[in-house]
């Protein structure tokens, strides 16, 4: 008999052990599950394992649970459960959203309007259309956007509600008004903030993820019922004919649980994160030759990035890691990336020496205040250490 994959070390094929030492994870892009989401996931393994497309009772029960999960998101997004679909990742949801709008508008044209600070996936979908430029804070110019929506052949506009690297919000109400006047549908990519910032209201199609609220990293796609939307190609029988297969029901339920748990304290968690980010911004700005980028006020509450002159991003990440602090970087001073962050480049910001913090929810990362205080206290020392390694301390 073959033993289970995960249990005691004597019988497992794959050994799983958690890192026990005290660490502060200041990168919420993908993290541990919210405790309630974990409990729901475990319970759903027994209750929701079946294929929701099956007609026997276990399948029907799984189908009902999946509908419950969709309804949790739908209620907060202000649409019906039938308008919401769940996808393997936010990137999948975004790709389906773009394909569905573009195909439905194919008689008008195929052009996709976006900004130079949007996600790489969106920029690739817009190609060869050049993205609209952004200013030094990564903000899009409304007049320029309005003028572009009036041009012929525009199928859709895709705009990130706020920037996932630098936190700057876009003026969505004005952008959506311009789209409505031009008859162009607007896909709002809320991947960086959904669940953590005020839920956007100005959109025709909305995309987000569930990792930021402590769920598994699923994608959520909502399409307003008045919007023409059709994903091309055969075989897409699941999730309102948007995907080939339904999500695995236990994961969908865990995602919905994390979302539901995050709602009551969303506003106070957001205010607390805003203040913590402010502390990091001030500490970074106080270090010589360090630039904090992005809008200081009109921003996501939980995202901040800064760049240190004469330092290398990967070395900064490793130096923080040695002190028990996990952060990300948009620099290309790493062996794994050839091109630096296109967002920092579009803003005219320094791409080297970059550090990005995406604060998790306190429910997922306890002692968040202590973690931020630890980062603030060591920030100057870390930058000095990396500059000393590079021999650039004298500059």
């Amino acid at each position, binding site marked *: 008999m073959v033993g289970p994959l995960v249990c005691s070390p004597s019988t497992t094929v794959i050994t799983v052990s958690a890192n026990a030492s005290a660490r502060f994870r200041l990168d919420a892009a993908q993290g541990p599950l919210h405790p309630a989401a974990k409990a729901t996931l475990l319970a759903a393994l027994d209750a929701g394992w079946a294929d929701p497309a099956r007609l026997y009772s276990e399948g029907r029960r799984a189908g009902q649970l999946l509908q419950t999960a969709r309804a949790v998101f739908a209620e907060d997004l202000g649409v019906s459960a039938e308008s919401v679909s769940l996808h393997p990742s936010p990137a999948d949801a975004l790709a389906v959203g773009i394909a569905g709008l573009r195909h439905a508008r194919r008689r008008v044209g195929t052009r996709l309007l976006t900004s130079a600070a949007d996600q790489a996936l969106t920029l690739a979908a817009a190609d060869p259309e050049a993205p609209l430029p952004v200013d030094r804070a990564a903000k899009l110019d409304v007049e320029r956007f309005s003028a572009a929506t009036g041009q012929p052949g525009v199928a859709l506009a895709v705009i990130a509600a706020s920037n996932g690297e630098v936190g700057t919000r876009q003026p969505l109400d004005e952008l959506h008004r311009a789209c409505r006047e031009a008859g162009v549908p607007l896909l709002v990519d809320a991947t960086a903030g959904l669940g953590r910032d005020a839920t956007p209201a100005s959109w025709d199609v909305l995309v987000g993820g569930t990792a930021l609220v402590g769920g598994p990293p699923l994608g959520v796609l909502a399409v307003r019922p008045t919007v023409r939307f059709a994903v091309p190609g055969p075989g897409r029988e699941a999730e309102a004919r948007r995907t080939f297969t339904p999500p695995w029901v236990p994961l969908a339920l865990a995602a919905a649980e994390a979302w539901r748990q995050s709602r009551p304290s969303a506003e106070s968690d957001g205010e607390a994160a805003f203040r913590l980010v402010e502390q990091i911004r001030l500490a970074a700005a106080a270090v010589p030759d360090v630039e904090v980028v992005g809008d200081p006020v009109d921003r996501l509450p939980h995202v901040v990035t800064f760049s240190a002159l004469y*330092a290398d991003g990967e070395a900064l990440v490793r130096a923080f890691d040695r002190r028990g602090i996990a952060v990300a970087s948009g620099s290309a*001073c790493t062996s794994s990336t050839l091109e630096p962050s296109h967002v920092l*480049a579009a803003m005219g910001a320094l791409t*080297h020496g970059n550090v990005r913090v995406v604060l998790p929810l306190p429910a997922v990362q306890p002692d968040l205040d202590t973690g931020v205080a630890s980062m603030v206290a060591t920030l100057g020392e870390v930058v000095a250490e990396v500059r000393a390694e*590079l021999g*650039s301390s004298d500059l």
Partner: protein
Amino acid sequence: MSDLPAGAEPVELDARGLLCPQPVIRLARASRGLPPGSVLQVLADDPAARYDIPAWCRLKGHSVELTEGIGHAVFRVVLGQPNSS
């Protein structure tokens, strides 16, 4: 275009083959002690230099022009007044 004294040769800096943040570190070092109006010509082929050299110039109050070479970029940096930082 610049207030470069007539006849002064630009300082040449070949940063080809260097990865970020080395081109900017070399440029900052080469510019030390030079008076305002001095010109530095930098060759670099790291993709990040295309953004980082102009960003450094902006942060330090220098001006820069970028032209395309073959397989690299050429930056003409004119030093501005030293800022207080």
